[in-house]
């Protein structure tokens, strides 16, 4: 177990290092930097600019910048934001928390809906409920994320069912703690709904396909012959057997939801990484961009690690394989 965990962790660490290297490589290809626009300002002397560039080490060669950046990551700073005049990490953490709140809720909710729907659809393969589910997932699949998010937003703005924009009401601080949770839930409804609806069709279809694959396996027929109830049969026997592809899909779904949440945060003005990163790109605040990308990689790697752990727990074949090694 420990050994398996360690090898997966090493893999995740390599991934994060690789991504940070790649991101830095791109910065050297980038024309211009944060201070370039100041050149147009006659009140700022060229000497001041070059002093600024030297101060932030933008005139140093790439390997040196990378090393000093790694150093600052190890000190919990992740570089320096020019636009905010502060280390990146604290800025990023506040936004990342909001993004995580959105993404984790959406991931859990999407899977909680997709699993029973997919199993139900697989159980009634080719019959009426299966057709209904297939058609509705097909319809959801052809509606692009952007159209879905904007559509929900237009609908909500016109009906006024849920608050739009931000993650708290103006009087949030004065609410009791129960009402605070309620307020947050109301604000989360719209972005979470958009995320879940965009992720759902793919998940349902995969659950359906994987469960349908194992449904006619001899061990399930035998279990049925023993008179094991239908529900136990489906969820205790069929689902774990179908879990392997689904757990790797779990890792992918986190990535998809992270991407989706970036867009949906901008559309629904959720104060997460999305609007923050967009702003940083437009301002050429490179360390913030690198930090954001790195953060998403870390989150994704953690998700994959979690999926690997679950797989280890669910699938005896993997346990046997790693024990024999």
């Amino acid at each position, binding site marked *: 177990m420990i050994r398996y965990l360690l090898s997966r962790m090493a893999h995740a660490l390599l*991934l994060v290092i*690789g*991504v940070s290297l*790649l*991101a830095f490589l*791109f*910065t050297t*290809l*980038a*024309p*211009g930097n944060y201070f370039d626009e100041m050149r147009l300002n006659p009140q700022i002397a060229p000497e001041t600019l070059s002093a600024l560039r030297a101060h932030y080490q933008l005139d140093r060669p790439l390997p040196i910048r990378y090393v000093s950046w790694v150093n600052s990551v190890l000190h919990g700073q992740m570089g320096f934001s020019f636009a905010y005049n502060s280390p990146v990490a604290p800025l990023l953490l506040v936004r990342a928390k909001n993004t995580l709140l959105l993404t984790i809720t959406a991931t859990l909710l999407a899977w909680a809906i997709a699993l029973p729907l997919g199993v139900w659809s697989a159980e009634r393969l080719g019959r009426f409920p299966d057709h209904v589910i297939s058609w509705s997932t*097909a319809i959801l*699949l*052809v*509606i*692009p*994320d*952007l*159209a879905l998010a*904007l*559509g929900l*937003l*237009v609908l909500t*703005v*016109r009906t006024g069912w849920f608050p739009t*924009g931000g993650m708290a009401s103006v009087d949030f601080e004065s609410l009791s703690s129960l009402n605070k949770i309620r307020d947050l839930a109301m604000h989360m409804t719209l972005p979470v709904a958009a995320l879940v609806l965009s992720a759902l069709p*793919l998940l349902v*279809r*995969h659950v*359906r*396909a994987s469960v349908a694959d194992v449904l006619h396996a001899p061990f399930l027929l035998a279990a049925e012959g023993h008179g094991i109830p239908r529900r136990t049969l489906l969820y205790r026997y069929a689902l774990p057997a179908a879990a392997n*592809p689904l757990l790797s*899909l779990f890792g*992918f*779904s986190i*990535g*998809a939801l*992270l*991407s*989706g949440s*970036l*867009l949906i945060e*901008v*559309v629904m003005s959720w104060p997460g990484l999305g609007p923050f*990163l*967009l702003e*940083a*790109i*437009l301002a*050429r605040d*490179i360390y913030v*961009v*690198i930090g*954001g*990308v790195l953060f*998403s*990689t870390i989150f*994704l*790697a953690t998700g994959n690690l979690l999926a690997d752990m679950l797989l280890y727990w669910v699938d005896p074949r993997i346990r046997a394989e790693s024990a024999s090694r």
Partner: protein
Amino acid sequence: MSRWRKVAPWLLVLAVLHGIVVCAGFFAPYDPIEQDRKNPYLPPMRLHFVDTHKHLHLRPFVYAFTLRPGSFDQYMEDTSHPLPLKFFVAGDRYRLLGLLPARLHLFGADNERIYLLGSDAFGRDQLSRLLFGGQVSLLAGLLGAGFTLLIGWCIGAAAGYYGGWRDDLLMRVAELFLALPWLYLLFAIRAFLPLAVNPLQAFFLIVAVIAAVGWARPARLVRGIVLSAKERDFVRAARGFGASDVYLLRRHILPETSSVLLTQTAILIPQYVLAEMTLSFLGLGVPEPVPSWGNLLSNLQQYSVLVSYWWMYLPALIMVPFFLGYLGLASALQESPGAYKIERRSLGSLA
């Protein structure tokens, strides 16, 4: 043969859809950047066949809008002022396919502009912008997918054919690209490219960015096929007869990858069109005044537009028929029926 029969209807649908966009100049009544500052945010004009006197007209007509008394942005239909639709009329000059100068438009009205999908803040016709915007978005998607497949194909073939450390290195890099969420990757690459560029540069920039993002998935698929193809008996035999690497690749190995490439094309194009839409929507893509499907939607980011002018949302729905067409084509291209198999392959580029 049966495969062709499955593919053909989807190809036809896509050909019609793309044909409309390619001939945007003919189907669009006006120039996409021509402004009509007196008529900002006109709602879509409804086509009528029956007038206020209950008379039926065979020629459809619309009513001109007038400002509602006491307001500055609320319009109402002026029923005393019908504008009959004229077909095949001469109007704004445009170049068909970018080459042939022409003036013929599918429809128009005498003397006044009609807005079947409403107008935007500058009184530009949304329908015309939508059709011309498709040229930008679809071309970006097509070119992006083409370049991605070219890069992925070369890298996959090289990795699979030569093997060894080259294979290891290339596939590790591919894993990096597969691991990152695509929008973050798109952001990261876009972040390090110039921001203030003219529309044409921006267009090619976008194509380059989206092409750089997605090569890993096709590369892995091609590598797998090349890996198995080069061990086939007839390939070994050809090698034994002294065939060169280039000959083997060209004649025996790469033709095996064609069906995977076709399917990948059908999967990638809509994703890339969506990527262009997303970037332009966020203001990182093709800038105004050139229309694209993404920047047509970008003013929905303003709350006032969202609340008051719902028809500005309509361009978002344009992707649905295109997605449907490409999804149908992709699943028809798969040898074995069952739509889930495609998605399993395309997962990486979605994630």
